[in-house]
């Protein structure tokens, strides 16, 4: 591995001070599961690395009636196994369970998954569908950014070099809500989504009060399928409506062809996985 200096801050403030001085040539490491391979293969060559493992605040996971507060350094494994997340935010728990392997998930963090900003990030679609906000700390204090505005491109986010993602705030879904995340991969473990789809539905008086659908690995960033969402809202959620929404979701995809799958195959997967996740979300909402 190329050489770098390593800072070991013990608080968010310590971390911000370091980033203020060295942010331009620094990378932040949380779990390291995305960063270390990129340091080893030379894709990233920072002179300075800031380790977050000593910042206890970032590992807090709070659940109450308002919703979830997930510290940026909460691991994928914690998200997979937390019974409160499994019950009320099942799409998120399912996405956490699909990251890497157990050995990876015990290290990999939700903040790292988002800040690495891969189009295929598994925890991004459920958090987009749940309308999460990113809490970002910087020299001027904290700001909140809706996750839908957080991603700027492949491996690019709104984070400035002197800023740190500290927390995700996820509002609690209303009564009669359900969600689901599915991805397609040739292997179940240690693979990267060919396509990932998260759906989140809320029912009220026999119709869909709210629909949120988010897609991974079909555009430069994880994206919402807003046309599909709008087609569902205000209507009874029938198999025909689900099929129509799945068709509309394909329009939100701008996939590329690569070794994982052709653009045509990815569009097909968007339709199939949107249909399946909406069907499961509907069942979980207590149809």
């Amino acid at each position: 591995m190329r050489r770098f200096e390593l800072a070991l801050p013990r608080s968010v403030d310590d971390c911000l001070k370091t980033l203020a001085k060295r942010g331009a040539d620094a990378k932040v490491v949380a779990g390291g599961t995305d960063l270390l391979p990129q340091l080893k293969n030379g894709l990233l060559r920072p002179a300075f690395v800031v380790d977050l493992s000593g910042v206890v605040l970032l590992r807090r996971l709070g659940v109450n009636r308002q919703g979830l507060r997930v510290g940026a350094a909460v691991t994928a494994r914690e998200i997979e196994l937390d019974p409160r997340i499994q019950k009320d935010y099942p799409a998120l728990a399912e996405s956490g369970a699909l990251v890497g392997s157990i050995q990876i998930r015990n290290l990999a963090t939700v903040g790292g998954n988002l800040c690495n900003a891969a189009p295929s990030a598994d925890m991004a679609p459920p958090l987009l569908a749940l309308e999460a906000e990113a809490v970002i700390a910087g020299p001027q204090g904290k700001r909140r950014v809706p996750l839908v505005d957080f991603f700027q491109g492949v491996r690019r986010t709104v984070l400035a070099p002197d800023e740190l993602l500290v927390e995700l705030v996820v509002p609690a879904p209303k009564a009669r809500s359900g969600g689901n995340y599915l991805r397609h991969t040739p292997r179940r473990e240690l693979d990267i989504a060919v396509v990932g789809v998260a759906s989140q539905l809320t029912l009220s008086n026999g119709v869909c009060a709210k629909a949120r659908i988010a897609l991974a690995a079909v555009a430069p960033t994880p994206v919402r399928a807003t046309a599909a969402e709008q087609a569902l809202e205000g209507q009874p959620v029938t198999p025909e409506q689900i099929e129509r929404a799945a068709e509309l979701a394909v329009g939100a995809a701008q996939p590329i062809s690569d070794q994982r799958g052709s653009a045509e195959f990815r569009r097909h997967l968007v339709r199939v996985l949107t249909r399946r996740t909406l069907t499961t979300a509907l069942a979980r909402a207590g149809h």
Partner: protein
Amino acid sequence: MAKQTLKCTINDDAVEVLVQPYTTLLDALREDLGLTGPKEGCGTGDCGACTVHLDGKPIASCLMLAMQVRGRAVRTIEGLGRADALHPLQDAFVRHGVPQCGFCSPGVLMAAAALLAENPHPTEPEIRYAIAGNLCRCTGYTKMLAAITEAAGATSAREGA
């Protein structure tokens, strides 16, 4: 570039060692501490040969910086059992002839040991799930499953005694 002082617990011993800031936990274990049980297969977290326990949980030691385990407890295959008192999993691996080339065995054993610590009576799908992050290029998975299943019985029998 200045080395940093790493203080942690490794296999129940308090350890203090100087490491480079860019040294991985796996390299510190193997090169600085002489614990060559954990192996580097891929170096990218894909094979599981470097699996060790961090505070009781299995992790890929090739994806962590050594300094990230400061103040924490690491266990390697060297600390799972002793030559004269093998862990039930190690004993079962020997009797079932699980190791072929043997390169993946330490990682598989650490993954399985973490499973049995959390879940002493795993089902076969649970065992498969627990070792899904470990690749065996000799493809010796059937014997692994048999040995882990048997050791799970032995572990629980011992706990009951």
